[in-house]
């Protein structure tokens, strides 16, 4: 079975969409302000915990344990959820997941479903599938509502409308919700969303959510949120369908103590997010009478098959790596053309969709390493990026006889780096050759096929004397 492209598959290379985004000064101002604010707050919040590094290591290790024994844990969570009165479905790909959810909604004869923000349901393209069956998906998260009303796309995991400022939001609400006298006070804007959605919550029969964590040994599922729209969706409707990526499993209840410390501080920089809901199957007289858990593969087993790239599945979607990334800060999320933007998107999207479908994303980074430092589950994003760049180059080589300039250059470099003599010979040659291009001590424009390297940066020339040469003259 083939994996279909993610809904906004990166057909457009990152470098091209980034150029468009960079030209939008309002966007850059909104993004810069928002990411700078959150970065400072996150550092304070994390600094408050003396055992932050120990928690990170525990979080990483728990995820490693789960992934290395994922088959056992999948079977276990299925049993646990069934024992607790829930239904479990398995979806190999997006289409299968969509039809499971649509089928459940249709069986209950509903015309509307309320939704809690969920990247996973975005990934499978659920909303258009519901609409095609005459069922209206209602996004209930404030930012998702903004994005949905604007006919826009999300640009951040947690704050999908991070690219919009308050006056833009006010204009949108005025227009779409018919609110004449709305101010741009955040409180007033939040109040408008509350009034708009309350009736929907009270009448909805079916809700759809994602899942933050699913406990294998008890079947307990959890959603971490801020606004209370999650609680509404998880509590009021009769039927609840939660779509969970295979990798969201944690082994035991005790493991929550790690993730409920790592996630809020890394994401919204709070000691704790306003609301976390945890439920196990179906409770008598409390909440939905029917609970469905959909276990979604959709490319995850392909990521799992790469022992190096597998760590991308540790991700708890906190978005710290987005907020810290100097590239994301300037381009915003849309440039990545994927549900998963930013540094994690740059390693996850190409693996989920196949490197051939997103060959530019592993290059959407300067490899500065800031993302690794902030990642609460210690995903070594720079290492995986480099690993994937290798895969992109190899895949290009395999596809067509002509290996491309980069492939040739890499081959050549491999030979040069293979021995000290060849390396030193290359340095001497380089010194001769660069005479034509060095201006004021830097190379700002390389000729021919190499021009791409200097399009965005200066290159530094080979030094007049290398350390080795200097060392030799000393003795």
């Amino acid at each position, binding site marked *: 079975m083939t994996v279909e492209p993610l809904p906004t598959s990166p057909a457009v290379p990152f470098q091209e969409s980034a150029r468009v985004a960079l030209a939008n000064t309002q966007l850059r101002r909104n993004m810069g302000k928002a990411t700078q604010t959150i970065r400072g707050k996150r550092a304070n919040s994390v600094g408050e915990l003396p055992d932050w590094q120990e928690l990170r290591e525990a979080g990483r290790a728990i995820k490693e344990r789960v992934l290395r024994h994922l088959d056992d844990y999948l079977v276990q969570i299925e049993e646990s959820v069934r024992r607790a009165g829930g239904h479990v479905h398995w979806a190999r790909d997006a289409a299968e997941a969509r039809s499971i959810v649509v089928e459940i909604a249709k069986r209950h004869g509903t015309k509307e479903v309320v939704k809690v923000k969920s990247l996973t349901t975005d990934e499978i393209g659920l909303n258009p599938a519901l609409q095609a069956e005459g069922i209206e998906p209602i996004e209930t998260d404030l930012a998702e509502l903004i994005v949905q009303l604007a006919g826009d796309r999300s640009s951040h995991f947690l704050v999908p409308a991070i690219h919009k400022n308050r006056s833009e939001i006010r204009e949108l609400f005025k227009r779409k919700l018919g609110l004449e006298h709305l101010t741009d006070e955040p409180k007033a804007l939040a109040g408008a969303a509350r009034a708009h959605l309350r009736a929907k919550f009270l009448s909805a029969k079916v809700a759809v959510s994602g899942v933050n964590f699913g406990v294998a040994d008890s079947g307990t599922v959890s959603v971490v949120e801020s*606004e209370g729209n999650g609680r509404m969706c998880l509590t009021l409707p009769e039927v609840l369908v939660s779509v969970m990526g*295979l990798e969201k499993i944690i082994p035991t209840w005790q493991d929550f103590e790690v993730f409920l410390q790592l996630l809020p501080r890394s994401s919204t920089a709070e000691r704790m997010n306003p609301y976390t809901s945890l439920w196990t199957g179906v409770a008598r007289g409390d909440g939905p009478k029917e609970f469905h858990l959909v276990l979604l593969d959709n490319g995850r087993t392909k990521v799992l098959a790469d022992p190096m790239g597998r760590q991308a599945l540790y991700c708890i979607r906190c978005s710290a790596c987005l907020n810290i990334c100097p590239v994301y800060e300037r381009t915003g999320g849309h440039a990545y053309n994927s549900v998963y933007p930013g540094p994690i998107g740059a390693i996850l999207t190409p693996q989920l969709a196949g490197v051939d479908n997103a060959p530019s994303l592993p290059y959407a980074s300067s490899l500065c390493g800031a993302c690794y430092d902030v990642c609460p589950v210690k995903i070594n994003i720079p290492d995986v990026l480099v690993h994937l760049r290798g895969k992109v180059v190899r895949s290009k080589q395999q596809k067509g006889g002509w290996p491309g300039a980069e492939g040739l250059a890499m081959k050549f470099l491999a030979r040069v780096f293979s021995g000290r003599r060849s390396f030193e010979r290359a340095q001497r040659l380089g010194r001769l050759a660069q005479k034509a291009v060095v201006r004021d001590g830097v190379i700002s424009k390389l000729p021919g096929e190499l021009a791409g390297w200097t399009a965005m940066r200066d290159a530094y020339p080979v030094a007049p004397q290398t350390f080795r040469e200097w060392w030799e003259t000393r003795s």
Partner: protein
Amino acid sequence: MSQARLEILRRVREALRDVPAAETAEGVAVPRDYRRADPTPREERIAHFVERVAEYRAIVRRVGADGLADAIASACAARGVRTLVAAADVPSSWIPPGVSALRDDLLTNEQLNGADGVLTGCALGIAQTGTIVLDGGAAQGRRALSLLPDYHLCVVREDQVVGIVPEAVAALAGSAGLPDRPQTWISGPSATSDIELNRVEGVHGPRTLEVLVVAG
């Protein structure tokens, strides 16, 4: 359906060919050398809890054991609360005179939505994070009760306040995972960071959270 199940499990096993067959899940070490207990003395711990609940812009007050009824009454009076949702096992002594209690005997969502407020106890409080946990235990009731009214008044006994998150998780281990005991962790009133990444209180959950910390 079961075909999808078989296929996914097959893919997973194939993907994990590098994992030695003899390795067990427990064989993958999880170091737990983060803090599991907080040595902070009780008085300081309670003070922390109060301080951190307040930082979420919830209203929080400490009251003596015999001052609880009065504190509830004055909180309700200050907001003009006339109808108060309460689970069947909330002590009658908590309900102020002049306020009518809507005891939860399967109240409809509309009834809950129309009430002025809700009064609950809790399972525990966490000082480190200013969090209150409800788990459907004593004096709490089902989840919708503390969700639909716009005002949540919550009573926390001092001896229910633990220091840090791992202590809370340990204390809840007995009921966690039971279908009839769903949990809600509450840290401040409903809020959003969706507008320019600033925390704004008051979206879909109760816009006002008031916490009374009772000695005892």
